[in-house]
């Protein structure tokens, strides 16, 4: 099944319709994305799962309006996304904090860009910092923070402008396993509390099964949608859900679909 087939476009928060992206390089044309379609419901947590270099990031950057598509469209609430949209915020790989700014100045960056006064949003920023356990670290510089703390600061930066859609590009890929578990738990909690729509890119099957309502599996280049899995594990999901038989079966099922590799025709 493909993403759009299940819902009318009217109900979906985010629709990707026939997204195709070709890059022209010195060695020829790279087909990064090929006729990729998916629809994300309001308030849904979706993971896009695929091997390295399958075009996941290309897809996410197109969703963020950071680059265009060769053909196809991205629509947010029915509106085409062709440039960065105020309702969309992105969390990047490796936190992507600016090393010359303190933590709080990093969080002020989107406000400065949008011409807003951070002081007027101080309560919101402070509440978010408190929520992720970074109160008291405002004046620290990124190099003084651990990888997990940097990524928490980056999440606060994205949430502080109150977007309705959060795009996360393998945000915890560089973290150690313990920190990663902790961050997965935190992002699930924040999602349950705020009701944001989240599109989360990962190449970890376990991470996808732990976090997602639905998992969109991508095939390797050219990036195509190969399968969609529903994850019916009830929320909130504690960390020890990963040791249950059901969880392990789901992981095995997703893994098998990737190993066999062949795109399953939509029906």
């Amino acid at each position, binding site marked *: 099944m493909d993403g759009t087939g299940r819902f009318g476009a009217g109900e979906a928060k985010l629709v990707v319709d026939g997204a195709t992206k070709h890059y022209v390089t010195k060695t020829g044309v790279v087909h990064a994305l090929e006729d990729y379609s998916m629809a994300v419901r309001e308030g849904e947590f979706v993971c896009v799962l695929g091997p390295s270099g399958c075009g996941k990031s290309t897809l996410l950057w197109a969703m963020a309006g950071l680059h265009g598509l060769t053909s196809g469209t991205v629509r947010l609430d029915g509106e085409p996304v062709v440039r960065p949209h105020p309702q969309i915020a992105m969390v990047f790989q490796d936190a992507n904090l600016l090393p010359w700014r303190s933590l709080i100045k990093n969080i002020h*960056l989107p406000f400065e860009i*949008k011409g807003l006064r951070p002081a007027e949003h101080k309560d919101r920023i402070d509440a978010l910092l408190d929520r992720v356990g970074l109160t008291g670290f405002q004046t620290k510089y990124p190099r003084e923070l651990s990888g997990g703390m940097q990524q928490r600061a980056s999440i606060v930066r994205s949430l502080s402008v109150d977007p309705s859609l959060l795009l996360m590009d393998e945000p915890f890929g560089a973290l150690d396993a313990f920190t990663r578990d902790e961050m997965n738990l935190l992002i699930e909690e924040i999602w349950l509390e705020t009701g944001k729509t989240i599109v989360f890119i990962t190449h970890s099957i376990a991470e996808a099964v732990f976090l997602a309502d639905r998992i969109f599996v991508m095939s390797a280049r050219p990036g195509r949608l190969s399968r969609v899995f529903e994850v019916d594990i009830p929320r909130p999901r504690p960390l020890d859900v990963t040791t249950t038989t059901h969880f392990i079966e789901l992981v095995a099922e997703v893994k098998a679909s990737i190993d066999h590799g062949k795109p399953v025709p939509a029906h």
Partner: protein
Amino acid sequence: MPSDSQLKDQIPEFHAKGGGDQEVSIANWSGVTGAIGGIRTWAEIAAIIGVAVLIIGGAELAIRGFEVPVYIMPPPSLILITLVTDFHLIAPHIGVTLTELIVGFSIGATAGFLLAAVITQFPFVEKIVAPYILLLVTTPMLALVPLLILRFGFGLEPRIIAVALASGPMVMINSATGFRRVDLAKIALARSFGASTLQIFIKIRIPMALPMVVVGLMIGSIFGLLTAVGAEMVGGSNGLGNRLAYYSSLIQMPQFFACIVVLALIGISIYVLFFWIGKRWASWES
């Protein structure tokens, strides 16, 4: 897209603390400033004083012991005494050299920085301009001084122009390296929040370039000092370079070396000044 850790390798670390385990290089600059600021134990202080006494005292003893004539090499004590007693003779020339340096460097550095900022935004223009910049960097601007004197006379103007021509390309070539250091992820971050091209330039590109700009300013000002002194030697009747030529022609070596000590102090002051500017504005640390 390079990550922070990769970039760190290319970015001078002004924040680096002095200490035995730090590599001494132009990149962390701890050789001078770090050592001054980072001394921790009495043993280190004793060693530094001991070595200084050994070198200066050794020179004093050797010169006196071997009865080296003053017109060849005056002993350090005589240089120091001359510096104090004849300071009133040297002082006006310090002012002349500093004026040439500050005015010429300000013009050259401003032009170099602005050109680097503009040109790096247009890779094609950069390719065309690069050979000429390299030519300006590698050609000693001192060579132009006789020509400049013909056109502008023996006043400060030809020297200021020479200083600007020597320092500008140094500032430009280093600033351009800084501006070329593009981190696509950081630019994408700013764009994802709706930043304009100008906002990306001010909030991302300039801060990323700043450490290299400061290195360029430091190297440019040192080149400016060399050029100012050299230009004064070529023609005119004032400035520290002129005094060097004057005292050596009269074989007044204590005065000659006193001028050299002053020049060395100016050079070190420039180095320390830009180190602190780098630490304050481009260290990426409070």
